[in-house]
């Protein structure tokens, strides 16, 4: 039995090892993607808090003056006082100092090194084929973890001895690191596999839990605006949305030209997992709330999937779990390489023994 499990462990590692390594390396980059992105664009991302925060109208005016009244798609207020606000235009994303109205610069859309890391992590940057390879690499990681634990259990080896050139050193490293990382790696691999098979998981969860249609808490029937009717300002839309969800922090105001109505997204700071799933849709003429979708209205299946994603991203308990997720990803390549070295050294010694016997 042990021999069979060892063969399974080896086979899964040899088949999927390279892809698991890619998942680890890219995952370690993505664990701190927002922070990295801000560091890479520091002059556009950070501001010094000073005085009052300008209204959306004032920020919109500053952007319109600079960009020849190009229509504003959406405002993205930042969630931190020292991060700049963003204004989305068709040409790109304008970064604005929300205290002075200074235009810090424009970011254009398109793939960057961080986006490429994300593409590698999700689909090996090669479409459907890559997506399927990585899906099954997640399953292979789970098999490898289960078989690895089975192999480790009898000896329960947790030490590192010998010179780094010796097989013993790599054997100890592989064992100790494997056990140390076992639980966080299991969490990352399992949640990643669920994300990779999200459609199937959503179907299954929908059947297991009673599917609940997300209902609007309040709605009005939209009417044709009266001739000459004026649209409400984004600041008024923001105030209406804020009154619907006191204490929530708005992080996006989409303009009615883009989507047919004001769409205000709010974050409930008390709910780390699904707190960002709040959307108030407001009629641009009457100011009436067309629909109000709250994170508390999510179905059990949606909540489970959101929690799964939060665990995978390391967001579930904030910074401590993000650090654990990052450390685990950083160590994955070490685990893959130590396993490969063990296999190569074992294979070489078997070949030598074989040659000696001849």
């Amino acid at each position, binding site marked *: 039995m042990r021999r069979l499990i060892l063969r399974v462990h080896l086979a899964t590692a040899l088949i999927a090892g390279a892809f698991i390594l890619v998942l680890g390396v890219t995952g370690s980059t993505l664990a701190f993607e927002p922070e990295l992105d801000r560091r890479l664009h520091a002059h556009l991302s950070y501001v010094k808090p000073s005085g009052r925060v300008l209204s959306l109208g004032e920020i919109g005016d500053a952007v319109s003056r600079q960009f020849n009244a190009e229509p504003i*798609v*959406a405002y993205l207020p930042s969630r931190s006082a020292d991060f700049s606000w963003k204004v989305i235009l068709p040409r790109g994303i304008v970064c604005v100092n929300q205290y002075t109205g200074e235009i810090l610069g424009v*970011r254009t*859309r398109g793939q960057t090194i961080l986006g490429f890391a994300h593409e590698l992590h999700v689909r090996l940057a*090669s479409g459907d084929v890559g997506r399927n390879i990585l899906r099954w690499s997640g399953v292979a990681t789970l098999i490898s973890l289960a078989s690895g634990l089975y192999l480790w259990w009898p000896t329960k080896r947790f030490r590192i001895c010998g010179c780094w050139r010796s097989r013993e050193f790599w054997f100890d490293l592989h064992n100790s690191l494997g056990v140390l990382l076992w639980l966080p790696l299991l969490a990352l691999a399992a949640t990643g596999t669920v994300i990779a098979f999200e*459609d199937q998981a959503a179907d299954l969860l929908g059947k297991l839990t009673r599917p609940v249609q997300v209902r609007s808490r309040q709605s009005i029937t939209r009417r044709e605006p009266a001739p000459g009717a004026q649209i409400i300002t984004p600041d008024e839309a923001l105030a209406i949305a804020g009154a619907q969800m006191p204490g929530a922090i708005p992080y996006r105001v989409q303009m009615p030209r883009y*989507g047919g109505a004001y769409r205000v997204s709010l974050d409930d700071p008390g709910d780390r997992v699904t707190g960002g799933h709040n959307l108030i849709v407001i009629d641009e003429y009457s100011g009436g709330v067309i629909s109000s979708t709250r994170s508390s209205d999510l179905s059990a299946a949606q909540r489970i999937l959101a929690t799964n994603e939060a665990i995978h991203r390391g967001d579930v308990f904030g910074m401590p779990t993000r650090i654990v997720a990052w450390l685990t990803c950083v160590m994955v390549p070490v685990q893959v390489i130590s396993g490969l070295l063990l296999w190569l050294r074992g294979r070489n010694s078997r070949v030598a023994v074989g040659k000696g016997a001849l």
Partner: protein
Amino acid sequence: MKTVLAIVVLFGMGAIARDVTGAWSGAFKVNGGDHGVQQLILLKQDGVKLSGSAGPDAEEQYPLENGKIEGDHLTFEVTSGEWKFRYHLKRTGADEIKGDLELKSLNNGRSAVISLRRVK
């Protein structure tokens, strides 16, 4: 004279048949994505210019930008927020349009295939 008239009428009918004005519905699938994304595109053709709107349904529509039509080829852009969609379409039948879609957002770029049919 009759021949000339017939040709003019035929070409006129062809031009009418080629007009893409109207509602088109279908879906796009991102290469490496899980599922199709619904699309409803409302096109207005004025010569070689294309205007109108596009979105997932009639309730949520975004204006077309830089729309033009050259022969059977249609190109236009839609900004839906962080994402910019660039459509490169070809009319493949009287009531059918197919093509590619470039999706770009901050840091990300993807491609998709799209298929649309005229809503009657």
